[in-house]
């Protein structure tokens, strides 16, 4: 029987549409031309501009602080929420599930402007703290969903077994449940981190003086400023992301061997 060539074509198309633009950005970032387009020679001037631009670094610092804080907090809160949703099934949990699910479908602009109005009403000064709170509030949902999926496959009899063998609840939680759930929590955390570092709409509204993040800065640069620097910045971000992904794969691999 002749195999259909459709899957292969689809795979190639997906790879092309996904990775080719990345290759293009990388090439463009070395283009000496100021407005993109025709190749006018190899140049590192955009990287030089990038690394000497204090504003970019301040934005990067803000992005990383918000990303790390909101990831860690939403990992904890999301896991706890998933646990509660999995263990108890009542009317309260149905409502809870709905509340957790809502941020996944609410448009960003609505969330951004309502959070801003809320902070203003409470007279909270806009800063990195307000951005972090906003990010945590939507990241929790993603972490919860991922961990919940993981919990559905979880066999709770191991917990009972541990307790039968003399472990108290805390020990069982720490030594059995958490390690087994870790990949799910970690995956949720990574998802939260990526969502946090590239969120623009919500961040724009809840950011205050001195808390411009990278996406907000990049948008402004696109409208007003030098786009080639954005290419260089994208390549740097790309490199960092690849290193992180490789590292997390290395971790996962190591984890399996230990198990």
């Amino acid at each position, binding site marked *: 029987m002749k195999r259909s060539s459709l899957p292969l074509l689809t795979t190639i198309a997906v790879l092309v549409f996904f990775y080719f633009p990345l290759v293009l950005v990388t090439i463009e970032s070395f283009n000496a031309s100021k*407005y993109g387009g025709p190749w006018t020679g190899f140049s590192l001037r955009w990287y030089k501009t990038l690394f000497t631009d204090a504003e970019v670094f301040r934005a990067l610092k803000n992005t990383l602080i918000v990303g790390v804080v909101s990831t860690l907090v939403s990992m904890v809160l999301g896991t706890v929420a998933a646990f509660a949703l999995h263990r108890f099934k009542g009317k309260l949990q149905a409502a809870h599930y709905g509340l957790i699910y809502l941020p996944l479908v609410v448009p960003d602009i609505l969330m951004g402007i309502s959070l801003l109005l809320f902070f203003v009403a409470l007279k909270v000064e806009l800063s990195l703290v307000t951005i972090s709170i906003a990010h945590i509030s939507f990241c929790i949902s993603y972490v919860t969903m991922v961990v919940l999926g993981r919990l559905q496959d979880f066999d709770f009899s191991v917990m009972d077994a541990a307790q039968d063998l003399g472990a108290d609840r805390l020990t069982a939680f720490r030594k059995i449940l958490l390690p087994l759930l870790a990949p799910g929590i970690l995956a949720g955390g990574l998802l939260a981190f990526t969502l946090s570092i590239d969120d623009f709409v919500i961040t724009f509204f809840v950011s205050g003086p001195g808390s411009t993040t990278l996406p907000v800065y990049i948008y402004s640069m696109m409208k007003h*400023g030098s786009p080639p620097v954005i290419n260089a910045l994208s390549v740097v971000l790309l490199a960092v992301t690849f290193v992180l992904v490789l590292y997390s794969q290395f971790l996962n691999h190591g984890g399996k061997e230990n198990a």
Partner: protein
Amino acid sequence: MRKLIPIVIIAIIAIIVFSSGKSETQKILRIYNWADYVSDDVIKKFETEYHCQVVIDTFDSNEAMLAKLKAGATGYDIVVPTEYTVNVMIDDGMLIKLDPAKIPNLKNIDTDYAKLMRDGKMEYSVPYMVSVTGIGYNPEKVPDFTPSWSIFLNESYKGRMTLLNDMRETLGAALKSLNFSINTTNDAELEEAKNLVICYKKNIAKFDVDEAKRGLVTGEFFVVHGYNGDLQQIIEEAPNIKFAIPEEGTSMAIDCMVIPVGAKNVDLAHAFINFIHEPENCAATMEEVCYASPNTEAVKLLPEEFRQNEAVFPKKELIAKCELIEDLGDDNAKYTKAWDQIKSAE
């Protein structure tokens, strides 16, 4: 759990590394501005002279900035909106009245530009940088070029010209060549302008904003309607390209510095506006951002070549013929309707 530890460690290191330095005891001046619109050197100089720290945040459109400030976001000491947004902010009571005694350098501001502004007496706003719309062209392909919107009626360049895909700019060009105001709300005048744009449309390749300027370099297009800042970037790479402002006049945009209600360092903000309009600082800023500032004394300090660059500095006699695009409120619908008819015309 063990897998989390490296991440936590990385996070802690990152926070420590990135948040080191910079004491918070100094005064902080917070500016809300477009990206790449100040000179780092001038900012550093200000920080040293006034013993303060300048923090710049960026926005990408007047509308987004306005939405945010209107919702109640405060804390910025200086904002840099375009003139039409300044008027909205004045009307809504969002701005602090400036104290001219604290900005002696107001005397350097070219009144030819200030006159175009509704807040021409600079009670609330001080013009910062100016940009205009004009025509980029390739003199080799268009040897008989004269700076006039009528070039778009010239059939010998059919299919080699582009107009901006922006209803106010393109209808504005037609209104200017008919000697009407860019902000007209007169139906008959708009109708005439609409018909003129439809005539232009027969000769142009397309309405475009971004691609056309590349086409100018590659030789695909000969005449391109565009913003001076964009075309100046093209000229830096392809010096054979020229820029001209049509003699009938064109649209101009002036970005202004304003102090919003709720600013924490009003005195420092005044000092900054004054500092920026110190001739040498203003000249340094212009050279870095490649826009013209309406500061007569600063312009005198610029190299001859830069001053003669028409893509940055409109000719003096043309300024009075330029107009600022105003927000027309409900009357915007008239323009939208005319634009729709132009787009669907054969």
